[in-house]
């Protein structure tokens, strides 16, 4: 119990110290910045409080785009991995293509998607989908194929067909990998959604808010969007952690 409190107190103390140093100008001194270049936490907080409804609406736009893209991308990624597992001879080609796609930087992808889709939301979902596909495909593939030694032999010995092997052995085995992929994808989907908004036609969303306000010298407003984006990311990550803990009770890593 005491250990648990300690585990919690140390990071908290560190965080508070960091914010205090920021508030009382330590960073400003080190980086030779004026408060109008780097607003202090209280100013960011009061700006955020004053503009909360708008910030939350923009947050909703970004997060919904990120989540829809995450779901579509993850499903596609999983399907590619499953196909590569069922039909290893030709299906693995899909894995190679998806890995190659992963190398395309988001900054290059966004303006291109902008030409393909007419609304900001479609463009955002498109970008996030592509970004999320690879992590899911790669993780799912290793989860579906790195099986316990002899387990597949056991399945064969009881004459299980491909489908039974998939649902009874491969799928449960891949579950921890799927969560790993989702945890990676939560962060990258939000990053991708925000960056895509830099280029989108739409004027809603956290990305547009950050870019537009920082250009117009509204530093505190820009920072409050950054705070909202970080909070949203952390909350989503925590949700995934909780779901994972619940779904993987049987797994060694949760004991």
């Amino acid at each position: 119990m005491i250990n648990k409190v300690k585990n919690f107190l140390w990071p908290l103390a560190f965080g508070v110290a960091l914010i205090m140093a920021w508030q009382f100008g330590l960073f400003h001194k080190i980086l030779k910045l004026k408060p109008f270049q780097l607003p202090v936490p209280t100013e960011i907080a009061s700006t955020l409080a004053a503009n909360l409804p708008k910030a939350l609406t923009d947050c909703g736009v970004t997060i919904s785009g990120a989540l829809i893209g995450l779901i579509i991308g993850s499903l596609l990624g999983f399907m590619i991995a499953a196909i590569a597992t069922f039909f290893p001879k030709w299906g693995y080609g899909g894995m190679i293509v998806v890995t190659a796609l992963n190398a395309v930087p988001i900054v290059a992808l966004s303006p291109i998607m902008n030409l393909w889709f007419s609304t900001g939301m479609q463009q955002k979902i498109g970008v996030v989908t592509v970004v999320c596909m690879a992590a899911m495909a790669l993780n799912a593939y290793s989860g579906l194929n790195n099986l316990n030694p002899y387990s597949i032999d056991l399945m064969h010995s009881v004459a299980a067909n491909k489908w039974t092997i998939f649902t009874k052995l491969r799928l449960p085995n891949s579950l921890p990998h799927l969560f790993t992929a989702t945890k990676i994808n939560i962060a990258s989907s939000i990053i991708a959604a925000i960056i895509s908004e830099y280029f989108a036609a739409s004027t809603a969303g956290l990305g547009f808010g950050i870019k537009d306000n920082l250009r117009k010298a509204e530093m505190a407003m820009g920072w409050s969007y950054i705070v909202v984006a970080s909070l949203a990311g952390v909350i989503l990550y925590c949700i995934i952690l909780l779901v994972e803990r619940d779904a993987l009770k049987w797994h060694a890593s949760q004991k």
Partner: protein
Amino acid sequence: MKKSKFTSLVAVIMLILLAATGCSSAATPDTTKTTPAKLEKVTLQLKWLPQSQFMGYYLAQAKGYYKDAGIDLEILPGGSDIIPEQQVYNGVANIGVTWVSSLMKYQSKGWGLVQTGQIFQKSAMLLVSKASSGINTPADLKGKKIGSWFGGNEFEIYALLEKNALKKDTDVKLVQQDYTMNQLLKGEIDAASAMTYNEYGLLLESGLKDSDLHVINMNDAGVAMLEDCLFVNSDWISKNQDLYVRFMKASIKGWAEACADPAAAGKIVFDVDKSVSLDHQLYMAKEVAKLVVPTGFDPANIGSIDPAAVKQTADLALKYGLLTKAAVISEDTVTSKYWKLATTK
């Protein structure tokens, strides 16, 4: 053992590099008194890419007017995420070109920047629509999709809308416009922001004729805000007054020549960067000349600051939400002192 030696070697090299870059960045902003025979280094931060919008500086550079004034001028191109106010304040550049409305915003937030010259006497901002979309007056914008580049470029449009009793959030749909005119050409938006000297030319180059387009000009609509001006860091100018006046003198000479013969100036600009096409730079040079020396404007006054226009910009910026409190217009924020010194000597 070998490995740790190698890492320490790498660390040492990194340190040396760090020290070297640290020294050089510390050395560049120091443009105060060096030996008189040597050229003094000055950097100019443009608001946008190298193009005829800035032909006066390029012409003066090409003809050696800055060298004659003892200045080694470096011209830094701008871009969508390069903000001249921040570049000049941070000391990346000494002198910057930006829009007055945007500069006022930074000044109101406490950035120690001062406007020292006004190159464009007129606003070049247009809202362009296809003639077929039937937008003949600003009031026709109701219910339409309007493109803007935002980041401070939207305030003339806000002013235009409000002046015509249209609410920007409910009566129209504002959309972020990219730096091409494709959204208008493809019909994704009804009206697009366009500068007389750049985007409007792109439309004409894409095969449209003046008669195919309808234009709302911010000057005619009474909502013009001042655009390209010169500004400096307040601390820098207090130590480099003479240097700045020499820069200004050479620049005014460059602008005067460029406006007298835009075709030659456009060619010079195109040779610098080969941006877009020679035709586009020539078109831009011709249009920019009209902004720097409008009809009836005495070319001897190139670069001068019109207090009435500054006031209109400040008033519109306050009225339509760019500024939250009225801009302080004083010698510390807008000054004609250096322009006078540059033109009388």
